[in-house]
């Protein structure tokens, strides 16, 4: 990582466009960008400009949220310059808006716009349902009243759909495509192309550098996108498969950027009666038997991935607590011992693990997982399911009372703050494999306490305790994850990739 990457972008005190080896940033020019992530929100005709239907990689081209999360997963001010809880239990939050911000149509940003935007978000955005009431206060501040305490609420304000749009009724808000971002919509071709042009009145003085960005959607078609990059049609391709990195790095014309910790996978372990995962020792054996380092090494390449800790947290998160690392032989021996203790001295067949090609490397990821688990006496079959309809498939009817359960299956996990991530291991949710018992109750009690806790250091201790519980209990397996990658031609400068793809910014990109 370069010096550039360690800089907190949101901190405006720093000089814009820190000088690099290539020289000073230049104004003007245009770049063409392709993106490969399978994104279901790429718009259709009417609403191609709505923040709910733009590719989330590019959400922050035309829009801003109140808060931005930096590459180290820390909160940074965006349209809000400050935020603080207005109640001791962290259930009421007051936000102070940045003064002097104007929308693309020239109107000034007001508290009413935030209220109107969040009237939509609290109905639609998954993370914003906790908001009970939004009020514009007399002093221009905005007050959010939540259904319960949430010490990490500001992260919600940075979520990918929660952009600020000019006030309008819930039915029509956002359809104009007007935001406060560094660029504004010039034209859109739903599902294919969005063209943006420079917003001259952008609130970050002197930004953006580029006059124009053309975004081409190549979801699931990385080879096509890379061919376009090599043929000079694209200046940049975002969200590429980590194993393409090796070959791309050989090309002197290209620069590969890593965003740091990206997505990983949770393998849900059903714990219904009769399931092998009912026995904690089998789960522990699986956690030990899977060679997490081999997955990182073979599937992603050394340095392109990270070892998971069986929680939903990504390694880039400051709250992430690594698991103790054992030499491979010892881990296998302990896994076998655990299996023997559980009554499976000759190993155990875990049945079929279902997977879905949610990203290009999934197939190879699970083959390595399958092969390495076999070394520890844990055999399983692999079966692919189409990405389409997969959620319903892996969840199943999921009704314990009726005897129908969710499946032994994987799904992708995005990088989010502990408040959102750790909540996913709650017992009434399928990803925890319906974890029950005293340890679960302790875990949830710790969670509730942390959400009410205003002090960050104390919260961090609680999160660590929760992760220790997961290391011991293994309600679900989260073995390893990848970094996010993008590749650009050398003349594209000032770009930084991000672990959360919706938090990528183009403000400081320039053409050399």
């Amino acid at each position, binding site marked *: 990582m370069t010096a550039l990457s360690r800089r907190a972008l949101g901190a405006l005190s720093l000089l814009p466009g820190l000088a690099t080896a290539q020289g000073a940033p230049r104004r003007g020019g245009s770049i063409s960008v392709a993106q490969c992530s399978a994104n279901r929100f790429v718009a259709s*005709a009417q609403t191609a400009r709505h923040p709910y239907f733009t590719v989330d990689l590019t959400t922050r081209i035309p829009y801003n949220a109140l808060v931005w999360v930096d590459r180290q997963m820390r909160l940074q001010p965006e349209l809000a310059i400050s935020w603080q809880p207005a109640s001791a239990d962290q259930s009421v939050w007051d936000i102070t808006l940045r003064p002097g911000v104007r929308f693309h149509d020239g109107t000034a940003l007001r508290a009413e716009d935030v209220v109107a935007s969040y009237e939509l978000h609290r109905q639609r955005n998954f993370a914003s*349902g906790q908001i009970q009431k939004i009020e514009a206060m007399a002093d221009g501040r905005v007050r959010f009243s939540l259904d319960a305490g949430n010490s990490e609420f500001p992260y919600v304000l940075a979520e990918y759909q929660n952009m600020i749009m000019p006030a309008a009724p819930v039915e029509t808000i956002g359809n104009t495509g007007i935001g406060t971002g560094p660029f504004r919509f010039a*034209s859109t071709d739903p599902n294919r*192309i969005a063209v943006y042009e420079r917003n001259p009145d952008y609130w970050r003085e002197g930004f953006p550098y580029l006059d124009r960005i053309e975004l*081409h959607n190549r979801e699931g078609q990385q080879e096509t996108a890379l061919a376009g990059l*090599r*043929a000079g049609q694209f200046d940049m391709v975002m969200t590429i498969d980590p194993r393409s990195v090796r070959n791309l790095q050989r090309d002197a014309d290209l620069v590969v950027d890593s965003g740091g910790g990206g997505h990983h996978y949770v393998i849900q372990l059903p714990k219904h009666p009769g399931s092998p995962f009912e026995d904690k020792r089998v789960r522990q054996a699986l956690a030990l038997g899977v060679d997490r380092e081999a997955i990182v090494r073979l599937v992603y390449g050394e340095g392109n991935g990270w070892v998971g800790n069986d929680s939903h947290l990504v390694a880039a998160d400051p709250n992430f607590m690594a698991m103790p690392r054992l030499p491979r032989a010892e881990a296998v021996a302990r896994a076998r011992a655990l299996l023997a203790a559980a009554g499976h001295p000759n190993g155990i067949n875990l049945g079929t693990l279902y997977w879905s090609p949610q990203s290009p490397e999934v197939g190879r990821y699970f083959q390595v997982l399958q092969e390495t688990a076999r070394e520890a006496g844990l055999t399983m079959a692999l079966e692919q399911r189409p990405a389409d309809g997969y959620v319903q498939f892996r969840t199943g009817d999921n009704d314990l009372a009726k005897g129908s359960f969710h499946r032994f299956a994987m799904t992708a996990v995005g990088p989010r703050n502990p408040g959102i991530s750790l909540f996913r291991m709650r017992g009434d949710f399928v990803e925890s494999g319906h974890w029950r018992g005293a340890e679960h109750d302790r875990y949830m009690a710790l969670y509730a306490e942390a959400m009410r806790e205003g002090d960050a250091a104390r919260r961090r201790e609680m999160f660590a305790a929760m992760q220790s519980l997961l290391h011991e209990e293994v309600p679900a397996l989260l073995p390893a994850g990848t970094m996010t990658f993008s590749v650009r031609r050398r003349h594209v400068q000032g770009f930084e990739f991000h672990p959360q793809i919706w938090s990528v910014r183009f403000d400081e990109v320039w053409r050399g």
Partner: protein
Amino acid sequence: MIALILRRGALSLVTLFLLASFIFFATEVLPGDALDVSLSADEIANMPAEVMARRKAELGLDRPILERYLGFMDGLLRFDLGRTIITRAPVGEIIAMPLRNSVALAGVTLLLALPVALAIAMAAAQAKGRALDNAVSGAAIIGYSVPEFVTGLLLIAVFAVWWPIFPATITASTDDPLSVLLAAAPLAIATTIIGSIAYLGRILRVGLIEVMAADFVERLHLSGIPRWRIIWLHALPAAMIPGLSAAALYAASLVSGVVVVEMVFAYPGIGAELVRAVTRREVHVVQAIALAAAICVVLFNLLADLGIAALDPRTRR
């Protein structure tokens, strides 16, 4: 002839009705509905059940299947293709341009492939069983045996990356003028043409060889009529007749069946739109595209019948 067209039309309506129903119920049995599949794992992980239920009710996804089916059929009868479930965009608007682009691609492909296929077939039929025929039919079989995605990726590697004379991927917009779009798509067109030449060439060659063995060709030969004249004026029109129906079906399949080419080159056609619509459970879009494809099949069949009638006076009444 008119009776034939009417009959074809009437039977086609039955087919279209069956098709509309099939598509509706088929997409209905797929797991999940438009809302479910529009949400990511992260979102589903965090969305309370009552919010989900409320949104389904808003989108009308909680109504019984029969009610939705009747509503859909009712709309069809009034030539209303409906709106998309999630974004409420009119379906007609969504499919119009991709359909135009697909028809254009199919048209250009046929226009360029037919003469080449014809030349190949004539050369092969002229020299049946000899080296030229073997080489030509061998090439046709190879062209037929290589998957489209391999041809497409190879063309890109050669003509866009190693020797960059053509664009690797299509960056034109869906609603750009056709001239702009087609000019941006030479490699996509080349990929479909290679397969088409192989297919059409084979059909024409077999037809021509069959006709060259016909009695009237022998009579002309025994009258001392030159061979080129026999082939061009007598055999060729006759040879095209039996292959015309197959060629028409092939042409129809070019409209909606070149999904792979559309994906590889990002050609804004109806095939890729269809795959997208299926994965998003946008039943009405799927329906509309399948109907458009079916209408293409019906139309091309009709064209083939008219072509046969033009070539074969025996079918005229």
